[in-house]
């Protein structure tokens, strides 16, 4: 309500100020007011009013400055005269009403509102202005009474709902505020964004009540959509979709389509799988309501959202629909087929993926085809199908292919070739995670001087395939086979696998770390000691962990692991709060 009054004042200044200022001293009044000379400003405004009794700009100036100098009573006569002279001017009526309220003349205010309401029986303005005036005097109870009276008199359910909602919000009654906003958006759907923006500030404890009101059985569709928007903002996408889905049959279709698009965009900002999934659901429904040219793109976007959510079951039919849609542009159909191929790779259906890539043939660009082939090769490597993986990379001379060939060589136990290929691929191939994996593997390979070790390759492949138990067994055997310089780093890796497996293997992990700390030297021992300390923390032995971390920091001060060890040390001592 305060905003509307400020806007009124600003509008009055813009509309009347420049036109009347030079002749009638309004400009001088503004200047004096800005300087804090309220008495001087009052004189200047009065001068204007003397020659132009209905000059709203000057009257509003007086309304601002007179209370500052304890002369508010002087405004009454001027406001009454102005309202008499221009009896249809709403702004002058409102000014007189505020003056009555400010001076405590409740009966006069009441009479004025009655006259005003009689002249405009369908207008809520008299009650709104009266409530604003009362609120300015901190009479929130009076303001609420007037707004409710206005609603009864005007006779429309949503009348003055926004003003009542603001009052509820001020008294921290968010449930009632939601009730009023539900009425407001039902009466005027353009208020939905404002409703969501205001109710979004509801404290955690009251959000449940707000949602209950907005999404209750029989609540208008606009209110339920506001509830869905709030739920999205509060990171509850599944509930948001449930609330929204209940409004899909509400007419008109164009409005539903628009709301679906908006919902999907908001859900897209939610990075969780659930958020992406409901984005996909919304786009899919959107596609059913819009013309075909928009629908195809929407279905592709829906499929992408499902893929982001790792919801293959939803993504597959959405993509298949686009891929098989003869009316869709060729480019989008191919895009859909490529996406299906990627999906097959990710879900491990490698034979089917290979067939799809072959079927795509020249239709897909060379770059896309190679990228799909490389993704297939990586999946084949991880599945242990090393020969097929190598075949799938035939003719690909990219650094990504080189990196994948490096993994093939490594898993075959050809350490020399793996080292060379990884080094040549450098830090540019693949994602950040792939680069990190490769760099850690290079670090391991450079400590093992053997040219070949089938056992080590097999152990690392088992690890890549997620078979930790087999990996541990194989790595322990590999550690016994490799040359003595490489033994500690393989033992360290085996220890890390054992620690990750946990349970009965913790003692084995501890023994492996201990042996590496004793014999590993500066390059491996710090990592073993850090891993050992973490194992001890996990086992609840903070004191033991502290001993190792302190030993690490003091013994290997130049190790790159020292900052990490200090942080663990702080954690173990409780110097860093848990968050």
């Amino acid at each position, binding site marked *: 309500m*305060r905003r509307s009054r400020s806007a009124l004042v600003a509008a009055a200044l813009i509309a009347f100020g420049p036109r009347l200022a030079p002749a009638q001293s309004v400009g001088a009044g503004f200047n004096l007011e800005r300087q804090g000379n309220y008495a001087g400003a009052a004189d200047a405004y009065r001068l204007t009013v003397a020659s132009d009794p209905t000059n709203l700009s000057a009257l509003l100036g007086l309304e601002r400055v007179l209370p500052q100098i304890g002369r508010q009573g002087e405004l009454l006569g001027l406001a009454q005269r102005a309202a008499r002279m221009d009896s249809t001017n709403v702004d002058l009526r409102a000014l007189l009403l505020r003056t009555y309220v400010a001076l405590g003349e409740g009966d006069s205010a009441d009479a004025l509102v009655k006259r005003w309401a009689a002249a405009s029986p369908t207008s809520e303005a008299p009650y709104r202005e009266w409530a604003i005036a009362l609120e300015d005097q*901190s009479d*929130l109870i009076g303001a609420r009474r007037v707004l409710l009276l206005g609603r009864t008199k005007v006779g429309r359910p949503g009348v003055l709902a926004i003003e009542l909602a603001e009052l509820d919000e*001020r*008294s*921290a009654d968010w449930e009632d505020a939601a009730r009023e906003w539900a009425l407001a958006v039902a009466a005027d759907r353009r208020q939905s964004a404002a409703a969501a923006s205001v109710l979004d500030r509801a*404290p*955690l*404890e*009251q959000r449940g009540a707000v949602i209950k009101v907005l999404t209750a059985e029989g609540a208008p569709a606009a209110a339920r959509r506001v509830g869905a928007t709030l739920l999205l903002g509060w990171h509850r996408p599944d509930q948001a979709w449930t609330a929204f889905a209940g409004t899909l049959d509400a007419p008109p279709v164009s409005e539903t389509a628009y709301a679906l698009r908006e919902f999907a965009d908001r859900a897209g900002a939610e990075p969780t799988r659930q958020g992406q999934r409901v984005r996909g659901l919304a786009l899919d429904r959107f596609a059913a309501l819009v013309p075909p040219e928009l629908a195809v793109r929407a279905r592709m976007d829906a499929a992408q959202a499902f893929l982001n959510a790792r919801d293959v079951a939803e993504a597959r039919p959405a993509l298949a629909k686009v891929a098989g849609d003869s009316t869709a542009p060729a480019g989008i159909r191919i895009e859909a087929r490529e996406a299906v191929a990627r999906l097959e790779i990710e879900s491990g259906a490698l034979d089917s993926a290979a067939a799809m890539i072959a079927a795509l043939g020249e239709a897909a660009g060379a770059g896309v085809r190679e990228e799909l082939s490389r993704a297939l090769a990586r999946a084949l490597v991880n599945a242990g199908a090393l020969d097929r993986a190598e075949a799938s990379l035939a003719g690909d001379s990219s650094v990504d292919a080189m990196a994948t060939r490096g993994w093939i060589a490594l898993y075959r136990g050809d350490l020399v070739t793996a080292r060379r290929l990884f080094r040549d691929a450098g830090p540019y191939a693949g994602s950040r995670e792939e680069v990190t994996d490769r760099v850690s593997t290079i670090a391991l390979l450079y400590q093992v001087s053997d040219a070949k070790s089938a056992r080590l390759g097999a152990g690392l492949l088992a690890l890549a395939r997620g078979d930790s138990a087999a990996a541990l067994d194989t790595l322990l055997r590999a550690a016994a086979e490799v040359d003595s310089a490489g033994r500690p780093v393989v033992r360290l890796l085996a220890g890390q696998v054992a620690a990750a497996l946990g349970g009965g293997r913790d003692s084995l992990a501890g023994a492996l770390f201990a042996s590496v700390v004793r014999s590993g030297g500066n390059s491996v021992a710090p990592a073993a000691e850090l891993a050992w300390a973490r194992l001890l923390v996990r086992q609840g032995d*903070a*004191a033991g962990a*502290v*001993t190792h971390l*302190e030993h690490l*920091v*003091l013994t290997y*001060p130049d190790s790159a692991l*020292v*900052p990490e060890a*200090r*942080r663990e*040390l*702080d954690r173990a*001592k*409780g*110097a*860093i*709060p848990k*968050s």
Partner: protein
Amino acid sequence: MKRRDFVRTLGAGVVLPSVGAFRLGLFASSPHSDTSLLVPMDDAQTDHLKAYGIVYRVVQAGIKSEWLLNYRGGSFLLPDGDAIRRDAALNGVAVEAVDPSRVTAIRGEIEASNADAVPLEKSPKIAVYVPPNDPPWDDAVTMALQYAGIPFDKVWDPEVIGGALHRYDWMHLHHEDFTGQYSKFYLIYPGSGWLRDMVQFNQAAAKQLGFTTVPDLKKAVARGIRDYVSNGGFLFAMCTATETIDLALAAHGVDIAAAFADGSPIDPDCDAKLDWSQAFAFTGAHVEPDPGVASFSDIDGHQVNAPTRRQPLGAFKLFNFSAKIDPVPTMLVQSHRDVIPDFYGLTTSFMRTRLKPADTILADEEGAPWVKYIHGELGKGTWTFFGGHDPEDAQHEIGDPPTDLSLHPHSPGYRLILNNVLFPAAKKKELKT
């Protein structure tokens, strides 16, 4: 505390649970007897905050150290020793071994510039005033002490009313609302479980300690803290505690708490009845009479929770004092940065017009009507008020995770807090200059 106790304290687990090398004794096995260790506090320092912990522990061991005010960001000069080097290495604190000739040169530089060397001789015993429940906000001082490894005790109303404060040299207050209105949180967080707990704990404490209302209890606690300072205690307060302790002190016998807190409305003439002679720092303030406005008075310049009054954040600048003439304020502003980004709290800053004439302004925002960091004396003690909640979380909100100081080891805002912790360690005669 003697050297033997230092070894024992370090082994006791509060600061460093692992004792190994300390059992060797601090100096007995030291091969560095004619060198000293300089703890640089300029940009060469690798962990400014933990450096204070190192110095605290050295002083706690009864070993004299020096604070080189305005020399390389307020560096410290310590005797050399294996245990100190070890402590520094473990904590990632940079130290530089300096031979006697270099020490002489440093002293020469100090003599010739606006710098001074202040002996540190007794580590203060620290109390932090915190409620017994677990409030959902962090406390910058507690976090700084924990991160630096400086031990402290927690005290609350029963300890203050029971007269236990005399056991401590230094006391910290943070988020407490001494007007007894629970920081007016009901306006923003009505129905919250933690707020319910807060009300319950405070009402139970008032009843247990023989007070009719929580505001009455808090006024008595405020007076207890005032007595503690008068008798020689060092008080450091941040956030709401700064403003509300003064309001509570000035309002002895005057109702400034809304009806929800004590069952009776605020005295409409309370402004005229406040006795500011009882307050530490402020005078002539106007109490916020509206229980619906999340503000206590017009002392705070930023009014963070009163939307129509809220002011944006700027940056505050530390004053440059004369180290030789004003060692106390100089100690409190030692930093490697002069200008520090501001941060909100329920009380963020202090209006210049509300300061007492004797207050020393340590930092302000140039051109703004408010200051950030002030200091003064009361009786035999001193107080320091620092506006805002968390120097590394400018918009800290209730429920936010606590700040991880290992990610802010060079925080100049947190340094100011730790200056305060160490300042009572300075030799008494230095403090009295």
